[in-house]
C-alpha cells in the first residue's frame, strides 16, 4: 500500500534514504542516516576519511545489506548506474574495446550505444587515445573512460564515487560540464568527493558526513559560502585561521 506521503516524496525525490544503519564487525559505520535526493539535482556527500561515504554508496546500491532503515527509489532500484572508487578496466584492451565489452553486460541497442559512446568520448577528449591500450592511459584518462562506460547505461540516477579522483584540472572542467549537461537532460546525480572546490562548483545540495552521521545538509548557493571553511569547522578537525592575519 502506498500512502499519500510516499507518493509525494517520490514526486519530488529520486531517492529517499530513511534511518539507514550499518555495522561492519563491531563498528557502526552508518548510524541512522536519513536524507532525500531531489529529482534532477546534483547532490553531494562530503566527509573526512572513514566517515562512511563509500559504505553509504554501497548501501544505496545494495552491495551491502542494511541492518536497519530503508532506501526508496522513485525510478526503481534497478535504474541506477554507478561509478565506484576503483577503475575496473581491462588494461590489455583498448579504450574502445573496453566500452564494447561492457556493452555485452548492459543490454542496450548497439547502434545507439555506439553513437552515444562516440559523443561522450569526444566530449571528454579521449578521442585520440580511445584506440590505445588502457595500460598506456594516465589515471585521469582511465577515470574518464570508466565514467563513460557507466554513463552509457543511460540510467535516470547516477551514483559517482570520487569521479574526479586523480584527474587534472582540464579534465575536471570537462567532467563538471558533462555533469551539468546530464542534469539538464533530467538525470539525478549523487556524488561523493574529497575535492571541495569541485563540489562547490557543481552541487545543488551538499551533505556533510562524519562518523556515520549526517551533521549538516544545505542548499549550495554556489560561491556564496566557503565550503572548505564550513566543512572544517563542522567536522571540528582544524581550527581555521582568520584570513586577515595573512
Amino acid at each position: 500500500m502506498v500512502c499519500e506521503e510516499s507518493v509525494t516524496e517520490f514526486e519530488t525525490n529520486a531517492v529517499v534514504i530513511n534511518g539507514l544503519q550499518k555495522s561492519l564487525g563491531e563498528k557502526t559505520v552508518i548510524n541512522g542516516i536519513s536524507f532525500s535526493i531531489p529529482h534532477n539535482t546534483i547532490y553531494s556527500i562530503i566527509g573526512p576519511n572513514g566517515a562512511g561515504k563509500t559504505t553509504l554508496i554501497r548501501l544505496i546500491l545494495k552491495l551491502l545489506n542494511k541492518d536497519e532503515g530503508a532506501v526508496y527509489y522513485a525510478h526503481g532500484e534497478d535504474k541506477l548506474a554507478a561509478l565506484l572508487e576503483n577503475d575496473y578496466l581491462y588494461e590489455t584492451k583498448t579504450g574502445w574495446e573496453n566500452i564494447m565489452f561492457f556493452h555485452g553486460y548492459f543490454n542496450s541497442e548497439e547502434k545507439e550505444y555506439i553513437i552515444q559512446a562516440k559523443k561522450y568520448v569526444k566530449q571528454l577528449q579521449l578521442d585520440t587515445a580511445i584506440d590505445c591500450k588502457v595500460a598506456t592511459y594516465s589515471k585521469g584518462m582511465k577515470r574518464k573512460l570508466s565514467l563513460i562506460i557507466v554513463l552509457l547505461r543511460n540510467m535516470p540516477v547516477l551514483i559517482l564515487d570520487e569521479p574526479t579522483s586523480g584527474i587534472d584540472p582540464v579534465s575536471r572542467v570537462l567532467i563538471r560540464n558533462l555533469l551539468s549537461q546530464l542534469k539538464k537532460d533530467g538525470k539525478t546525480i549523487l556524488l561523493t568527493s574529497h575535492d571541495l572546490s569541485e563540489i562547490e562548483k557543481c552541487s545543488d545540495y551538499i551533505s556533510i558526513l562524519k562518523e556515520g552521521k549526517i551533521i549538516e545538509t544545505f542548499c549550495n548557493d554556489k560561491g556564496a559560502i566557503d565550503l572548505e571553511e564550513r566543512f572544517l569547522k563542522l567536522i571540528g578537525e582544524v581550527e581555521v585561521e582568520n584570513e586577515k592575519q595573512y
Partner: protein
Amino acid sequence: MKSSIKLYVKDMIKNPSYLFIVIGYLCITINSIFKVKSSILESDMPEEVVEFTFQYLFFTLIIGYFLFLVMTGISSIVVSDKLSGRCEMLLANKVSIELLMRNYTITIFFLCVLPIFIYAVVLLGIYSFSELNEIMDKAWNVGNLFFVLGFFIFSLSLIKMIIYICLILKRVEIIRSILSFSSIGFLFIVMAPVNFLCNQGWILTGYALALAISAILIVLSVIFLLVILVMKKNYSNERVVLSFRQ
C-alpha cells in the same frame, strides 16, 4: 549477455597462459604416449595390464587436461575480474550475481570442453591407428558413454563450485596458488580408488574401468553440488563485496 560470454571466450583464446596449456599439454602428453607405447609394447606385460595402462592413461590425461584448463580459465577470468574490481562494478550496476556466475560457468566450461574434445579425438586416433587398435576395440563400449556423462556433470559442478569459492574468498593472493595445486590434487582424488584396487590386485579394464571412473566422478559431483547448495544459502552481494577488502 551472450555477447559478454563471446567476448570472454575471444579474450581467453588469445591469452598466452591458456594457449600454453592447450598446445603445451597436447604436445607433451602425446609425445609421452608414443614413448610409453613403444616401451610397453616391447615389454612382456600381460595383455590385461597393457589394456589397463592405456585406458588408464587415456582417462587420466583427459581429466588432468581438464583440470589444468579449468584452473587457467578461473585464474584468468574470475580471479582477474575480482582483483580488478570488475565484479564489484558489475554488481553495483545491477548485473545479478546469478548472471555473473552463469556467464563465468558457461565461458569456462566451453573453454575447457572444446580442447578436451579435440584432445580425446587425437588420443583415440593415436590408439586406433597403431598397434593399440586391439585395445581400442575392447575400449569402445557403453562404459565410455557413462564416462562422458560423469565427466560432463563433474566438470560443470567443479567449475561452479570453484567460482563460488573464488568470489567469496578474502585472501585473493592465495587463490592462484590453491588453483595450481588443486589441479594435481583433484587428479589424485579421482584416480585414487582405481589405484587402490590395482594395488589390491584387481586390474579394471574396458567397461569396468570406465564405469569405476564415471562413478567416482559422479560421487565427487554430488559432493560439489552439496557444497554449492550450502554456499548458495548465504551467498549475497555483501559477501562478495566484503571479500574484496583485505
